[in-house]
C-alpha cells in the first residue's frame, strides 16, 4: 500500500501548492503501527505525514460537517463506504460539491485500529482482532462511487452469500426472544452518543436528542430511554444509512448497531426498493423516506 | 464562599416558596416576588448573589436576586427565553416554586463604600445591578455620587420603569440616563447604544467604581470604552452569566478558566477577568 501512500502525497502536494485546496484530509501514523489516525494537512510541509495503510479505516466524510458553514476548499481521501458518505452529505445539502476534491481509493479491506489498541491495552482478557474489521466483512461496495481521481485496482465486494444473515436469525426469533436480545444489548448503553457523533448521516444542526422543547427522549440510562434513543435514531437512518459501520466500531460497549441498521436497509429495499443509500449522486434525488410516492406500501394502515 | 443557608440540608434540593406577586416589566420580562410558605424568606442574600429557581416539573434556572426586601420577599426579574422561563411566565400568584441558594460571591458592597458609583446596564442586565443600586440607596450615606446608564432595545423593553423614571432620579446626588436603540414615537430621550452613550456622557473616572452588566457583546464594548476613558482594571466590576445547572461549583459547565461563575463569580473585577480566558 506504499504506492497508494505515495500517490496520495503527490496529489496532496499538488493541490496544496496550487491552492486548489485549503485542507487535505487523510491519515497519519500514530505511535504504534496500528494507531493510524485521521490527519488534516494544511501546508505542503505536512504532506509527508500522510499515509494510507490497512488501518486507514476512519470515515473522513464525517469531518466535512465541521466545515459545512465555511468556504474552505477541501481535498479528501475516501474509500468505498466513505465516498457513499460524501453522497449522503451532498444529498442532504450539507456541503457543496464544488468545494470538494475527492481522491477515491479502491479499498482492499481494513483492519480496525481501535480493536488492535484494545487488544494491547490490558483492559480485555483476550485479543479479539480479526484479520479484517467486522464492518469490512459486510462490504457491498469497496470502490468509491464518487471521485475526482481514483487510485488502486478495482476491488470486489466482501459481503458473503447471505447479506442479511444475522438480521434473518433475529427475525426468526420469537417476539419475546427478540425483546430479550435487545433488552440485554441496550441495557449496556451508556448514552455516550459517540455513535451519533461519528455518523455522517447524523447531521441535523439540533439533534432531536438535544432538543428540550419538548424533550423527546430523557437523558437517563433507563432501559426505556435507551430503547427510545436507539430506535428513534435507527428510524432516522432508514433509507439514509450508508453502511460505513463506524457507529458500531466506535461504541465503547460493543452494541451491535449495524444489526439494527441492516434490518432497516433490508426493509427499505423490500418496501421501497431496490435502494441502496448513497450509491450515486443525483442532484435533487431524495432518500425513499424523504419523499412520497403514490404507490408506497400502506398495508400496515 | 457562601454558607449554604437554604432550608434544607442537601444543597441540590430546593425549598418551596410561594409566589406572592407577579409584575410585567416588559413584554418578555416579569418580576416574581416569592416568600417561604408561612412567611419569611428562604435565605438571606447580599446584592449580586444568585438563586436557583425551580418550576419543579419543568426545570431550574439560575437568576440573580434583584432585591431582598428584609424578611418579606425575594424579587427575581426573569426574562422569557427558553423552555423553563416560557412555562414560568404562565404561572399565577399563589403558585409554588422551588428555590435554593444563595449562590455566588455578590458585589463588593463593603469595598465600594465611600466611592462614586457608575452603573451601566443593558436589557435584563439591570436586574442584577438593581440589587446593588437599591443597596446603595438604602445605605445612601455610605456611597458617593450615583450615576446609572441604562439602555434597551425599545421603550417597552426598559425594565423597572417606575424606579428608573420616578424613584431613582429623586434620590440624593443621583443621575439616571436612559437610552433606547432606535427612535420611537413618544420617546424624546436619548437614542443609541449603551457603549456610545457612555462615551458621550463621559463620567469621570476618578474615585469611581463602574459596575457593568448586560449581553456579553455589550459588556465587551463597555469594558473597551471604560478603558479608553481612563478607568483602571480595579475600578471596573462586571457580573457574568453562563449556563448553570448545579449552582454549587460541581457540575463543571459554568467555568471561565478555573473559576466557576456560580461559586467564584458571578461578580469579577476587570483585573480578575483579564486573568481568565475570554470565553464567556
Amino acid at each position, binding site marked *: 500500500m506504499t504506492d497508494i501512500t505515495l500517490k496520495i502525497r503527490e496529489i496532496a502536494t499538488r493541490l496544496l501548492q496550487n491552492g486548489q485546496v485549503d485542507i487535505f484530509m487523510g491519515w497519519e501514523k500514530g505511535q504504534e503501527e496500528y494507531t493510524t489516525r485521521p490527519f488534516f494537512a494544511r501546508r505542503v510541509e505536512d504532506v509527508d505525514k500522510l499515509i494510507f495503510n490497512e488501518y486507514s479505516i476512519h470515515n473522513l466524510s464525517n469531518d466535512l460537517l*465541521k466545515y459545512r458553514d465555511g468556504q474552505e476548499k477541501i481535498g479528501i481521501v475516501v474509500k468505498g463506504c466513505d465516498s457513499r458518505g460524501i453522497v449522503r452529505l451532498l444529498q442532504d445539502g450539507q456541503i457543496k460539491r464544488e468545494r470538494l476534491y475527492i481522491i477515491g481509493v479502491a479499498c482492499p479491506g481494513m483492519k480496525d485500529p481501535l480493536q488492535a489498541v484494545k487488544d494491547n491495552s490490558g483492559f480485555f482478557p483476550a485479543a479479539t482482532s480479526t484479520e479484517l474489521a467486522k464492518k469490512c466483512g459486510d462490504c457491498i461496495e469497496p470502490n468509491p462511487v464518487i471521485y475526482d481521481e481514483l487510485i488502486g485496482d478495482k476491488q470486489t465486494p466482501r459481503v458473503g452469500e447471505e447479506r442479511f444473515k444475522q438480521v434473518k436469525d433475529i427475525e426468526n426469533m420469537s417476539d419475546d426472544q427478540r425483546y430479550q436480545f435487545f433488552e440485554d444489548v441496550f441495557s449496556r448503553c451508556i448514552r455516550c452518543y459517540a455513535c451519533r457523533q461519528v455518523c455522517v448521516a447524523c447531521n441535523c444542526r439540533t439533534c432531536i436528542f438535544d432538543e428540550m422543547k419538548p424533550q423527546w427522549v430523557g437523558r437517563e440510562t433507563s432501559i426505556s430511554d435507551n430503547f427510545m434513543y436507539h430506535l428513534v435514531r435507527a428510524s432516522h437512518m432508514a433509507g439514509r444509512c450508508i453502511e460505513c459501520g463506524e457507529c458500531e466500531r466506535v461504541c465503547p460497549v460493543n452494541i451491535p448497531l449495524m444489526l439494527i441498521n441492516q434490518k432497516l436497509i433490508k426493509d427499505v429495499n423490500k418496501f421501497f426498493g431496490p435502494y441502496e443509500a448513497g450509491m450515486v449522486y443525483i442532484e435533487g434525488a431524495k432518500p425513499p423516506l424523504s419523499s412520497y410516492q403514490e404507490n408506497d406500501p400502506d398495508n400496515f394502515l | 464562599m457562601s454558607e449554604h443557608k437554604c432550608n434544607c440540608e442537601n444543597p441540590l434540593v430546593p425549598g418551596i416558596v410561594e409566589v406572592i406577586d407577579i409584575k410585567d416589566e416588559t413584554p418578555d420580562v416579569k418580576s416574581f416576588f416569592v416568600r417561604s410558605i408561612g412567611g419569611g424568606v428562604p435565605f438571606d442574600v447580599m446584592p449580586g448573589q444568585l438563586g436557583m429557581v425551580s418550576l419543579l416539573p419543568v426545570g431550574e434556572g439560575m437568576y440573580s436576586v434583584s432585591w431582598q426586601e428584609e424578611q418579606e420577599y425575594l424579587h427575581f426579574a426573569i426574562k422569557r427565553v427558553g423552555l423553563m422561563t416560557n412555562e414560568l411566565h404562565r404561572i399565577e400568584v399563589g403558585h409554588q416554586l422551588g428555590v435554593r441558594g444563595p449562590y455566588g460571591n455578590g458585589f463588593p458592597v463593603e469595598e465600594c463604600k465611600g466611592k462614586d458609583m457608575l452603573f451601566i446596564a443593558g436589557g435584563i442586565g439591570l436586574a442584577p445591578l438593581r440589587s446593588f443600586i437599591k443597596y446603595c440607596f438604602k445605605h445612601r450615606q455610605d456611597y458617593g455620587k450615583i450615576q446609572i446608564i441604562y439602555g434597551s432595545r425599545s421603550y417597552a423593553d426598559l425594565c423597572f420603569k417606575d424606579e428608573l423614571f420616578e424613584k431613582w432620579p429623586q434620590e440624593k446626588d443621583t443621575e439616571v440616563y436612559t437610552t433606547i436603540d432606535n427612535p420611537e414615537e413618544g420617546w424624546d430621550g436619548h437614542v443609541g447604544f449603551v457603549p456610545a452613550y457612555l462615551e458621550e456622557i463621559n463620567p469621570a473616572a476618578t474615585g469611581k467604581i463602574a459596575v457593568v452588566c448586560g449581553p456579553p457583546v455589550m459588556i465587551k464594548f463597555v469594558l473597551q470604552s471604560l478603558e479608553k476613558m481612563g478607568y483602571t482594571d480595579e475600578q471596573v466590576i462586571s457580573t457574568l452569566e453562563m449556563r448553570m445547572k448545579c449552582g454549587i461549583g460541581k457540575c463543571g459547565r459554568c467555568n471561565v478558566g478555573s473559576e466557576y461563575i456560580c461559586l467564584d463569580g458571578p461578580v469579577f473585577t476587570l483585573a480578575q477577568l483579564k486573568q481568565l480566558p475570554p470565553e464567556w
Partner: protein
Amino acid sequence: MQILSKSKIKDALNQLSQNAELFIPLARGEESGFYPWNSYQEGSDRLMLDALNVLLPPKSVVFPQTERMYSFTGNGTAVEIKETFESPQPRIIFGLRGCDAAAIACFDDVFLTMGFVDSFYQARRDNTTIVAHACYQPGDNCFCEAMGINPTEPVNADVIIRDAGDAYIWESKTDKGEKLSAALGSLLENKEAKAPGLQPFKQKANYEGVAEKLKDMFEDPMWEELASTCQTCGICTYVCPSCYCFDIQVKSWGDEGYRFRCYDSCMYSEYTLMAGGHNPRSHEQERFRNRFLHKLQFFSERYGKPLCTGCGRCIVACPVGINIVQIINQVKEADTSVRA
C-alpha cells in the same frame, strides 16, 4: 504481614459481599468494567483482578451515570418535595488501580470541598470502602507516574492489595479497612510474601511545568490543529475515571416527577448553550481546548493536582487516536517565546 491466597479470592469476595455491594473488575461479553460481584456468571464472566485494568472506570460506584435526586408532587399551588434519594448503602470497590483511586481522590476534592458538600456523593462515598490494587507493571498506555501518582502506593485506599504471585498481600490502612479484614477472618493468613518491583513505563509523558506553561497558551494555534480531527463524540469523558461533569434534568408526568442528574460531556455542543442562544464554546476546537485545559491546568489551579491520572483509557477508546500524552509532551516542548 497478612496475605489472601488467590485460591481463596472467590470465597473472600463472597464473604465481603454479605454486608455490602461489592464491585469488582470483570470482563463480561465484549465489555470490561466494574460490576457487582453478585451478578458474576461463572463461565461467561471473567475476573479481571490480575489484568492491568478494565475499560469502564469505577467512578459509577460513587457517582453513577444516572442518579435520582428527589421526587416531587403537586402542581401550581401545592408543590411538595416527597423524597430525597440519598444512597448510603455500604459498597466496596475491590481491585481498582492507583490511577482510579487517585481519580476518586479528585472526586472527593470536587464534591466534598470548596463551599458546598454534595450530599448525594457524600452519602455514597462515606459508605464506600476502597480496596486498591497496587500496580507494578505499567501498560502500553499508562503514564500515572508522570501525573504525580505512585502506582505502588494507591492513595485514598482503605486496603491495599499487592500481587505476590499466588497470593495478595493484604495491607489494611484505615478503620474501614480493618472492618474488611475482620470480615475476612480466617481467609487472611499471617505469612510473609514479597511484592514485585515496579517495571518501567513505556509511555514517556513529561508533565513537569505543563500546567504553568498552559496559562499563556490559550490562544496558541496548536489547539486548532490538535482539535481538527476530534469528533466531539464524548467517549473520552465516559471512559475517563476522573471526568465528572454532570447535567441535571427532570422527568415528570402529570403532577408527579423526579429530578435526576446524569453524566454530561463538555465535548457536546449544547454543553454551554444558554437559553437565549449565546454559546461561548460553540466550536469543537473551543470545547476541545477547554477539556484539555481543565484536565491539565484549571483543575490544578483550583485543587493543586491535575485532573488526569494517567490511566490511558482515553488513548485506547478515542476513535481518531487523539493522545493526551502527545498533547502534554507537545506543550512541554512548545517554544512559547516565539508564538507571542
